């Protein structure tokens, strides 16, 4: 975990675990699915930079390298073939990886203090020294990103190349992209570029073009231009992602109530003993042994 970055939020930590040092601008990755050519240079760059194990290609009946992300494959272009409403053919491709949510469901679900952190710059990262590999983050993620690495018994996912960002570099995937459909900068800049691109697409006939930055998770650290924004599911994206209700109900309602109830029952038993006392057996309390 980079030492130079201040932490905004940390899993299972009191008051959110903020370290409160050094304000940083929030960063984001920009993905334009309309200019992506599916060359997979980003996939290779990710494997190379992060020294991930070689994962053999798995035939899926399309150009896609494998069915979904793995613990050793954090960046995957998802290919999908669709029909638009006029019967026209669409060949869509979107780079899938951790979305670095402003409100990360993985972090909310994580029980290990400090195992999932969100830096002041918005990057969401797994600290393997604290991760216990329980997989709760899988249940917390609305994008199906974290993977269990059986070799290390830890969770793993895209770090947004925090080790590069920390020293002023862009993520490896962005560095490798030949079309400029990937860009990296402050969130504000990336949103501005994205909005301008959406206007351009609308003017050119893609009336439903949008910038995918879902408000349900407070926005994401990966903003994605979708040519057919009315169908995010065509790109493998949820329409309205949230921190799951199951996780909220668990952490914010059931757990505090449960703690009250358990401590309350101990107090109740003590109170009963003081006000009602024990039921002693009668006259032949033989030999007085308990």
């Amino acid at each position: 975990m980079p030492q130079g970055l201040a932490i905004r939020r940390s899993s299972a930590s009191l008051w959110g675990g903020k370290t409160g040092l050094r304000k940083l601008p929030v960063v984001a990755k920009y993905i334009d699915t309309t200019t992506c050519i599916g060359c997979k240079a980003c996939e290779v760059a990710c494997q190379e930079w992060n020294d991930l194990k070689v994962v053999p290609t798995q035939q899926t009946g399309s150009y896609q390298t494998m069915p979904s992300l793995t613990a050793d494959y954090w960046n995957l272009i998802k290919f999908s073939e669709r029909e638009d409403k006029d019967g026209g053919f669409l060949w869509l491709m979107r780079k899938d990886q951790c979305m670095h949510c402003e409100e990360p469901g993985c972090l909310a679900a994580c029980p290990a203090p400090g195992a999932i952190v969100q830096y002041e710059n918005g990057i969401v990262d797994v600290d393997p020294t604290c991760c216990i590999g329980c997989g709760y983050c899988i249940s917390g993620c609305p994008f199906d990103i974290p993977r269990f690495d059986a070799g290390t018994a830890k969770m793993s996912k895209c770090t947004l190349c925090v080790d590069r960002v920390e020293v002023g570099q862009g993520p490896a995937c962005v560095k490798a992209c030949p079309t400029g459909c990937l860009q990296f900068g402050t969130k504000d800049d990336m949103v501005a570029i994205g909005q301008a691109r959406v206007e351009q697409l609308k003017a050119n006939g893609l009336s439903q073009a949008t910038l995918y930055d879902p408000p349900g998770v407070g926005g994401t650290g990966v903003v994605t231009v979708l040519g057919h924004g009315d169908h995010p599911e065509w790109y493998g994206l949820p329409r309205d992602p949230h921190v799951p209700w199951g996780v909220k109900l668990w952490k914010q309602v059931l757990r505090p109530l449960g703690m009250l109830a358990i401590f309350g029952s101990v107090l109740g038993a003590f109170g009963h003993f003081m006000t009602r006392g024990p039921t002693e057996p009668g006259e032949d309390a033989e030999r007085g042994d308990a």
Partner: protein
Amino acid sequence: MATPDLVFDRARVAEDTLVGEVIIRHRLSTRVIHWAVALFFFVSLVSGAPIWTPVFGWMASLLGGLNVCRVIHPWAGLLFFAGSVLMFVRWRGDMRIEPGDRQWLGLKSVRYMDHKEADVAVGKYNGGQKLFFYAAALGALGLLVSGIVLWLPMRFPQLVRWVGILLHDATFILFAIAVVFHIYLAVFAEPRTLRAMTRGTVTKGWARLHHPGWYREVVEEPRERG
């Protein structure tokens, strides 16, 4: 007069019999099953509670950290379930629900805790104990089923994972409360009860007070018959 050695020898194999001045309530194998289940329950508790909330993070240090807890917890849970099954099978015969027992779901339990309940018909187990027995069996099953989902989250769809988490949590909370009262009643509120589960024997006075129907069966009826 029965010597202590004779009592211990008899309590290895016999149950529900008078030996000298004491009554054997639980034979050795029953007690061993009970304490095995209790041990696995507490290992599961100490390894699970720090994963539940950092408030109990200190428990993790007893076992060597949160990573150790994560490894131990599911296996301790499995052993707890296996022990619970054994216990259920062994005790089921004594736990048949009788007409009056259902009232323990309601005010009868409150009257009992208020020391205002004197039921001369109470056999080896009262309605409250039977209720605890079936609730614990159901709880063990709930913890197992939801625990398997939590153990292997990648094998289940998202909705099942959330239900699993909530079920595991809710069942644990209810179980923990039940165990608090179980221990309170056995150790503090009703003196001379714990020995039934350690040495296996209880005094006649204890049996007359808490289980008069069982006392008659064990002490008076054999005498009438014999």
